[in-house]
């Protein structure tokens, strides 16, 4: 029996695809895998769920935010990428790491079809920040590594200087040992 062809069902492009979120900080755009983002919120929408860090050992992390009984270190996107002061209006709450990233804008969702490693000439912090580079709409964009916003060493320093805070930050108002305020 001959196999019947279904041209409409044959994928035109068999390359693996990945859904990504395009976001911007200052004049720069980035992408991050959509599967690594738990939730996207407006900074206004965070309300009273933000707790100050006792000892902000990293200038880019000054708060913890609590969402759905989990707590996340709030990382300033512009400080993380050493960019000039910007006006973050959105928060990317990440899925598998205790990190929420302040970004200026969410641009769009897109489909990433190519992920290229960083060229070997790059030797700085970008090797931690990015999984690689992609091309979307004929533009080259860096693909943020969700684990690059806070390295294991940075997480350890935050925990050492603020012991137990990440676990206790989710308590109801009144039981927290830290004053709550907006980001």
């Amino acid at each position: 029996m001959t196999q019947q062809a279904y041209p409409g069902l044959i994928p035109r492009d068999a390359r693996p695809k990945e859904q990504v979120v395009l976001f911007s900080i200052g004049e720069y755009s980035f992408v991050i895998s959509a599967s690594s983002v738990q939730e996207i919120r407006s900074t206004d929408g965070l309300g009273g769920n933000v707790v100050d860090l006792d000892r902000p050992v990293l200038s880019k992390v000054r708060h913890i935010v609590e969402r759905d009984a989990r707590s996340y270190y709030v990382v300033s996107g512009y400080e993380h990428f050493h960019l000039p002061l910007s006006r973050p209006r959105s928060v990317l709450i990440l899925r598998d790491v205790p990190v929420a990233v302040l970004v200026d804008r969410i641009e769009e969702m897109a489909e990433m079809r190519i992920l290229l490693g960083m060229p070997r000439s790059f030797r700085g912090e970008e090797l931690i920040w990015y999984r690689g580079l992609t091309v979307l709409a004929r533009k080259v964009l860096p693909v943020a590594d969700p684990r690059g916003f806070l390295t294991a060493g940075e997480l350890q320093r935050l925990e050492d200087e603020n012991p137990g805070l990440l676990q206790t930050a989710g308590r109801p108002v009144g039981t927290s040992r830290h004053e709550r305020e907006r980001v």
Partner: protein
Amino acid sequence: MSAENNNLIPSFVVLQVGARRIALPREGVAELIASPLIYKFPHTTPLIAGVVLRRGRILPVLDLGPGVSGALSPSTRFFLVVERHTSNAPEKCAIPVQGACELVAGIMVPAADLEGYVTGHLNLNGEQIDVLDLEKAIALGAANQNEWIPATEALS
């Protein structure tokens, strides 16, 4: 001069970086390209001005300006694609150039000071052109740019 003799004379690519004309051995140069767009994103590697897309490949743009002319190169749409041999594998990079590049044949007079990034000199119609060791020029430029950062911070 016969073509056979010509093949024995080393050739160099003369390029303009900022206000200075320099030369690179022809063997390390792949092509001269015009790219309308340079894509920039945050990073901390000195001398890298961004990346360009060339035939589906992403090439880092390495500005030799801080090392060889003491200033960042002016914006341009022309890049000389060269091959670097930094680690295990070679990598193509794009060097911003101003104006046309020239392919010349000539005998290089070795530099007296081998510590610097100039390996020798070419005499082109009376003009002395420095021939660069690309990796040394990049290393020196990176060191210079690192020095600029604290100076800039101190002034701000």
